[in-house]
């Protein structure tokens, strides 16, 4: 019964996200603030259903819902949409949704094809440190998705010779700061958890190495802006490179490079996904 409710919430949230993207797109094409306002409203409704689904999963699984691949990806999507709502409300700008909502939608579509069984929590997963690592890392990734989408918006408006694309440039920078701080915290807590369970802070397995590479690119972006005074186009391109590194860390490494995270994930000794 509860399983069906959970599934229903998942599909209802996904459907609302799709509709919200349609409204965003229509609002953007027609230049209508009302359309985009409605889109954000629909997105809020979808996000609340999504939150309900994650809460129900937590109740059913009796452990934090971030351990199986399905739980992990849906939780990541929840954070991506959450970051969007945070930035969309704060910035009073809704064009961001046209480019950011698809990132969350791809994650929801990815989750839809995954097995949704609930598995028991392995004893090594118990404890606050691993959960903190997953949440902070995913918050870092979700915030960089905002940087990415804002940079795309900037490049688009710049091509259209818009008078004021600077809003997106500043939004990208602010989100990048969040992303860098959270990814830093995520890498540190992941190292501490690995040390506690495997006896080593850092293995240099490809997932860890690529997290470090992503972190270096995020750092380069912040330094380029801060010290070299990079703005606009050049910063936006570097942000897109950072997002590509993030996607490779998250998916590419699993597919292309053998690693401890992957083996452990397959065996259940570690959850699937990035830098866990």
């Amino acid at each position, binding site marked *: 019964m509860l399983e069906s409710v959970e599934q229903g919430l998942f599909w209802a949230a996904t459907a609302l996200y799709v509709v919200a993207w349609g409204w965003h797109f229509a609002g953007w094409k027609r230049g209508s603030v009302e359309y985009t306002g409605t889109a954000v409203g629909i997105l809020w409704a979808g996000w609340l259903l999504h939150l309900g689904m994650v809460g129900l999963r937590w109740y059913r699984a009796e452990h934090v819902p971030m351990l199986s691949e399905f739980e992990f990806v849906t939780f990541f999507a929840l954070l991506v949409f959450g970051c969007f709502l945070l930035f969309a409300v704060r910035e009073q700008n809704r064009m961001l949704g046209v480019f950011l909502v698809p990132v969350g939608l791809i994650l929801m579509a990815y989750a839809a094809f995954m097995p949704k069984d609930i*598995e*028991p929590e392995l004893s090594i997963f118990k404890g606050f440190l691993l959960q903190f690592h997953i949440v902070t890392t995913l918050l870092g990734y979700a915030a960089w998705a905002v940087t990415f989408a804002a940079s795309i918006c900037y490049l688009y408006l710049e091509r259209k010779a818009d008078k004021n694309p600077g809003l997106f440039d500043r939004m990208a920078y602010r989100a990048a700061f969040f992303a860098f*701080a959270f990814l830093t915290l995520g890498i540190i807590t992941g190292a501490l958890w690995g040390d506690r369970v495997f006896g080593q802070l850092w293995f240099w*397995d490809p997932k860890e*190495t690529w997290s470090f590479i992503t972190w270096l690119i995020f750092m*380069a972006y912040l330094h380029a802006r801060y010290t070299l005074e990079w703005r606009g186009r050049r910063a936006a391109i570097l942000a897109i490179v950072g997002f590509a590194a993030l996607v490779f860390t998250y998916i590419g490494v699993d597919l292309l490079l053998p690693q401890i995270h992957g083996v452990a994930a397959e*065996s259940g000794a570690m959850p699937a996904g990035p830098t866990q």
Partner: protein
Amino acid sequence: MADGALRRVIRLLASLKVAIPLLVLLTVVTIVGSLFPDPDIFRSWWYLSLLGAQGVSLLLVTILHIPSILKRKGRNALLGVIATHLGILVIIAGIIYGGFAGQRHDVKLIEGEVAIIPGLHFVIQLDELVVEEYQQEDFPRQELATLPKKKQEGRITVLQNGEAVAEAVVAPGKPARFDGFTLLPSISEIGWYFELIVTDWLDREKTVPVRPWAPPVLRLGGRDVVTHSARSGDLQQTEMFALEDEQLVSLGFAGREEALEIDKHKVRLGTVKRYMGMQVYNRPQEPILVWGSVLMFLGLVWHFYFRHRDRRREGQQDA
């Protein structure tokens, strides 16, 4: 003359013309390194040197930019920048120091026996190892052999000069600490230590210990024979193999009651005990890494919070 050269090197490292290419080089080298299956590349002297050079360059660039950051972005931003970069430097120093300091030993603990670790002033006795396995219905899509144990709790005693000085219950993720050393059980190294009782055609009996991490090769009749793991559960037995042309050829199973006959020798299973691997290490760089991380993160938060607040007060926008 030497002073002038040193000054030139410092000026060079402190310039963004070097710092940025160094960062790009570090990123590219790390990307290339990730393509190799052996991560030893990241522990090589030249990679650590590159990391060190990046750290020194970061420090010098930050010092050089202090006046301009103070002028353009204010005191709070400067404090954040200094704390963040100092944190990164402390971490890099900790990593480099860790390359030379500390010690690590991998030991195998057999239930009821004492493990001596050369170079350490204590020995460890595994009093009891309690193991519980997952059932297939818990993880229907996984191979149980690849999963960690549902429960893996070892009761250990640390002895010095023959006297018990500490007792602890350890599990993966729950290490014990003794005299600056961490005692952490391994997740994957767990199994059965056992003995084989070999009786020859003259009825002479010999006991051969089999440590699965270093299995012995027995010469029985004209054959080289090996075994490496015992089956657990009610039916305890071990599979014996003949080494023929570097191939393993199964000869059958030797059990407790049922002996396996190999070239006029009878092989039975003797004592069977659990064993587990354990890492014993001390890492003097650990507090350096933790404090470096704390400093870096606090610097980031400080910078972001106060810079944002200061800019708002000034009615300016970020970036």
